[in-house]
């Protein structure tokens, strides 16, 4: 059949396009997948076990809420950003811990970038501008350094963004702040805020 031929041909389209749609699915379909998972569970276990499952889900949700509240309280009392971890590993091997405490970040050309959570569906050119060569816990403080491991290629995108290739998928990193130039932060402040922060400020920079 002709339409089957078309369906088969669509099955042969470029891997990058197929996986691009998968990444899209991962980002946007969490709620739908949860729903599908529940349906699957119902198929397998039947209605009698559903109530038990729902009860378990309820208590799991309550426990999760308590964990979130505790974590939020801890973060508010001990903000991790901008503080060096006193007992951080020099060899930077505890990637899991750093990911738990900090967002995924890299430093390129003296500027920090953080993972926006967005991925690029088509990799396009494989040309990279550089590679992450070192990794630290916490906040990167050297060029070509990350807090989630080494060996990742990166390239510069438009609008001062960086794209980092992780497991074959390009992730979009957005600028956090410059390591050497904070003038843009100051410029963003209102006149009143500038006067509050700098008593000597007289309306001129």
């Amino acid at each position: 059949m002709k339409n089957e031929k078309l369906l088969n041909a669509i099955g042969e389209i470029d891997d990058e396009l197929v996986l691009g749609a998968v990444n899209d699915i991962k980002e946007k379909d969490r709620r739908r997948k949860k729903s599908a998972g529940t349906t699957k569970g119902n198929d397998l276990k039947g209605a009698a076990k559903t109530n038990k499952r729902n009860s378990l889900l309820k208590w799991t949700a309550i426990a999760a809420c308590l964990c979130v509240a505790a974590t939020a309280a801890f973060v508010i009392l001990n903000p991790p950003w901008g503080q060096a971890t006193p007992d951080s590993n020099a060899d930077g091997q505890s990637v899991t811990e750093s990911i738990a405490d900090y967002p995924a970040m890299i430093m390129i050309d003296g500027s920090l970038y953080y993972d926006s959570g967005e991925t690029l569906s088509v990799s396009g050119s494989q040309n990279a501008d550089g590679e992450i060569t070192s990794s630290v816990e916490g906040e990167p403080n050297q060029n070509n350094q990350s807090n989630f491991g080494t060996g990742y290629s990166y390239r510069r995108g438009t609008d001062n963004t960086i794209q980092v290739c992780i497991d074959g998928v390009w992730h979009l990193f957005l600028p956090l702040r410059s390591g050497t130039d904070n003038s843009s932060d100051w410029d963003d402040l209102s006149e009143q805020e500038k006067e509050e922060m700098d008593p000597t400020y007289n309306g001129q920079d």
Partner: protein
Amino acid sequence: MNDNEILDLYWTRNETAISATAEKYGGYCYSISYNILRNNEDAEECVNDTYLGAWKSIPPQRPNRLSAYLGKITRNLSLNRVREYTAAKRGLGQTNLVLSELEECIPAETDVEQHVDEMVLAASINGFLLLQPERNRNVFIRRYWYLYSIRDIAEAYGMSEGKTASLLFRMRNQLKAHLEKEGISL
């Protein structure tokens, strides 16, 4: 374990390749198969057959993207199973609906009949998709590669089902025009 390490296990005929594959890509393959078959037991069987297919074909194959390679095997096995079931009038999932929709993309016959190789056709579709905005492209691939239902796609993108169906309709017409422009007839 990264893909290269898993592929090395296949190449050294180490059976832990199967469990490593299942651990990393079992869910991915299952979701593809379940979308097509809408049956838990059949989907699980197809996923297991996928591992067997990978075991038999790697080596000599060494795919660049293991996930896509496994996904294609799963998709083909699942579609084949639907074809078997169609004859027996059993669970159809989205496949017949999708096949019916795709009929609209088939260009009118030209005077000179052309035999179109599947890969040539795939390359043309590839080119068409690359010209599309990212969202449209992904909607199309979800529908016609992964065989997601229109409802699922609409929900994922926060669109109405009508808008999603309309978008797919326009894209099918565009694909038809694209194929005709490239002189492809099926």
